[in-house]
């Protein structure tokens, strides 16, 4: 089937089998920043934003993106031009193995888009679906807090 949606700000038109998962569609199209950690909607490594909301892309069909907007880590920034969240997580030493980080970034972006000045509790709630085995979340939460400060300064 053909699915048309906005991906990281650009209109795309993908033709794939109707049972294709959003996660697989993204990775087949080369957007491998979105990771597969469980395929059971329990680890959060595959988190993307669908219409601004953090979702597990392993649990959604590509078809559910029809007419919507999808944001992935590739849309955030790059090594040469990182998003404040990407820079802040690195500067906070929150990126250990980094496998969960794209999903963490998208959950954090979904939060900061709604609430530019979140409490620590709000950050923990927003990240609760993103399992990280390396950090104990301490530096991830520091990083998101740093990024929020930086983004508020920029506005």
């Amino acid at each position: 089937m053909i699915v048309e949606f906005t991906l990281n700000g650009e209109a795309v038109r993908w033709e794939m089998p109707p049972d294709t998962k959003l996660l697989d569609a993204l990775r087949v199209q080369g957007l491998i920043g979105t990771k597969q950690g469980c395929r059971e909607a329990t680890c959060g490594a595959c988190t993307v934003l669908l219409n601004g909301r953090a979702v597990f892309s392993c649990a959604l069909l590509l078809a559910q993106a029809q007419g919507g907007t999808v944001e992935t880590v590739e849309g955030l920034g790059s090594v040469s031009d990182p998003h404040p969240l990407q820079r802040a997580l690195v500067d906070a030493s929150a990126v250990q193995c980094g496998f969960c980080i794209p999903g963490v970034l998208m959950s954090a972006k979904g939060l900061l888009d709604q609430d530019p000045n979140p409490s620590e509790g709000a950050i923990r709630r927003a990240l609760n679906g993103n399992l990280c085995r390396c950090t104990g979340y301490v530096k991830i939460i520091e990083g998101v807090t740093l990024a929020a400060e930086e983004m508020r300064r920029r506005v």
Partner: protein
Amino acid sequence: MSLKVVGTSVRKVDGLALAAGGPLFVADEIPRHTLVGRALRSPHAHAEIVSIDVSAARALPGVYAALSHHDVPRVAITTAGQGAPEPSPYDTFILDKKVRYVGDPVALVAAETAEIAAAALKLIKVEYRPLPAILSIDAALAEGAPVIHDEPEAEMPIPVHYEPEKNICAFVDVASGDIEAAINAGDHVIDGTYEVHYAQHAPIEPHTCAGWLDQYGRLVLRTSTQVPFHARRITARALGLNVRQIRVIKPRVGGGFGTKQEVLLEPWVGALVLAAKRPVMIELDREEELVFSRTRHPQRVRMRTGYLADGALTGTYMEVHSNTGAYGSHGLTVMTNCGSKTLPLYRRGEVAFRGTTVYTNMPVAGAYRGYGGTQASFAQECQMDEIAQHLGVDPLALRQKLHIRQGEGSPAFAMLGEGKEGVEQIVQSCGLAECLKQGAEAIDWYGKRGKPGDGPIKRGIGMAALMQGSSIPEIDMASVTLKMNEDGSFNLMAGATDLGTGSDTVLAQIAAEVLGVSVNEMIVHSSDTDLTPFDVGAYASSTTYLSGEAARRCALKVAAQIAEVAAVELGCDAKAIHLEGGYAVGPEGRQISLARVGAISLYERNQHQIGATDSAISHSSPPPFAAHFVEVEVDTETGLVKVKKYVAAVDCGRAIHPALAEGQVEGSVANGIGYALTERFIFNEWGKVQNGNFGDYRIPSAEDMPELVTILVPTVEPTGPYGAKSVSEININGACPAIANAIYDAIGVRLRQTPFTPEVILDALDAKARG
């Protein structure tokens, strides 16, 4: 010595690339037309395969290979991923004619898609003859128990006790002296048995391995491994290839914690690639990762200790029964580490250790962060509290009185090695006293302890003191290669295996410090068996200590070569030159930039490649030390234990990168809390794990984590690079005992078995109420 780079929290060299979501992990970048590899797994805990027929699977369109034990070399290996000869038994085959736990691989397929692979697995016909299954340590040792490893090939490659006909994977019995006399010399004797349970590492990236044949017909394996060189050697043995026919590439790895020391997928992928003549990738699914990869050895640890009325210990006998599951990976060494990573912590008088590791028809244990230290610290640190309670003294004060000091040794160091005798050691750096002091202040030990409160929710404070090691002495080796470019940058090639730990950054910092440059001048590559020099890999808390020392030595060689070139340019003696700020600086302020030195060396005069390789071996395993303190709330109505605050005060020598060192502490503590409270396997009566998913095997999430305070207590370890010791393993060991001790403080119930689930708490409260 004023340090410029070491001791600073520079930006992690791969941080931005990871945060940008680039193609860094195995599954992110695979050759075109890579096939999907899958394993058929045993539904039985113990069975013979009477017959197996893969022909229908092989005939399915889109299937390129289907393999049973008939189709692969029958060579016994260990998957343990250790140096050679391994201290683990050769008791595993790529595929075998017997299955020994629920999940043991029976057949392998490679197909165009995951759907075809799944369909192919369904077409494989297997006839099993079920055998009685052994589902406990005691059942394994019972008279007349079924023999799990009755294959004639099973053997131990080193001369140690191995008795598979009795389901004994390993046995050790050592003593420093007359232990009975020593224990009985005490005014009191305490005899306690403590049990710890199964758990899994749960890296968010499961084991993943892609393989293909290159244009020269060599087998290339791009794999999420902690041990690229051991993976190459073991895969070569399993497939009947020469080491030279295999190249192992380790890209970024999505967490390991020990489970990726296991060489699980590489021989399978190799066998499938050779059969299919096409690239193949196997990615474990979450249940396979949680239950069918490797786990922590569950153990029963008995400690019998004699002590005087003033608290001094006269002797300790530690007896360990360890369950290695169906295969003996790390069965010996995790068990011996129970003693060597705990007993030296206190002045104990005489010590004796007796350990038995048994095979069962249960999930396979292996290396897991903490490596015996986790299991035995639970026993040791609970028992210390019990002794303190019996004597009516403060458990913190008792530890402060008894702990090992700088300049002291322990008979346990020499008594217990890893497959051979241990190495005598004198502790040359110990910040434990300061860890105990600062940690106690941070948790408000004296203010909060012994005040459970009146309501249904009781509060408690508990603690544990810990030690580990840094590398395996007289066994481990690490190497680093550096070469200089004409812009003054350096390629640093390390066999050391960054699996998210930050070792690429730490090695770059050490080399940059020696060469007087910033980390930005270091281009780090790890690891590729074709390109990077040998390193045993990421295990045994060795990378910073040992690979870091190799980086330092290598950089010193390179610095000397730079000085030779610079000396000619500056017209001085090479010995008069030092490197600083990107320059070679000579007498009277004369200097030349490293970029100029690089350009001269490659293009202009007496051209040669400035570069070197150097190695380091360890002669000792200096222990890091830690003191952990925890505040818990125990809900006496629901049984729920909630950790409110956790303080980890840690002596890891000089932290090369303090923020990354803190991150190691924080991640370990989180994992330890999960182990103590929620992470466990739920078995059915047939030995099948029922909860192989993150919904039911609960690792801590962001909202689960308490306030976590990390205190780094600096010391300088004279044998470590810039004074460094290890940090990554020790801090997983504290949560179980510290929480158990805090639960005792809260509700007066002594728990000697992990985990501390609500049912356990309620049962214990019931038992207490009944008296």
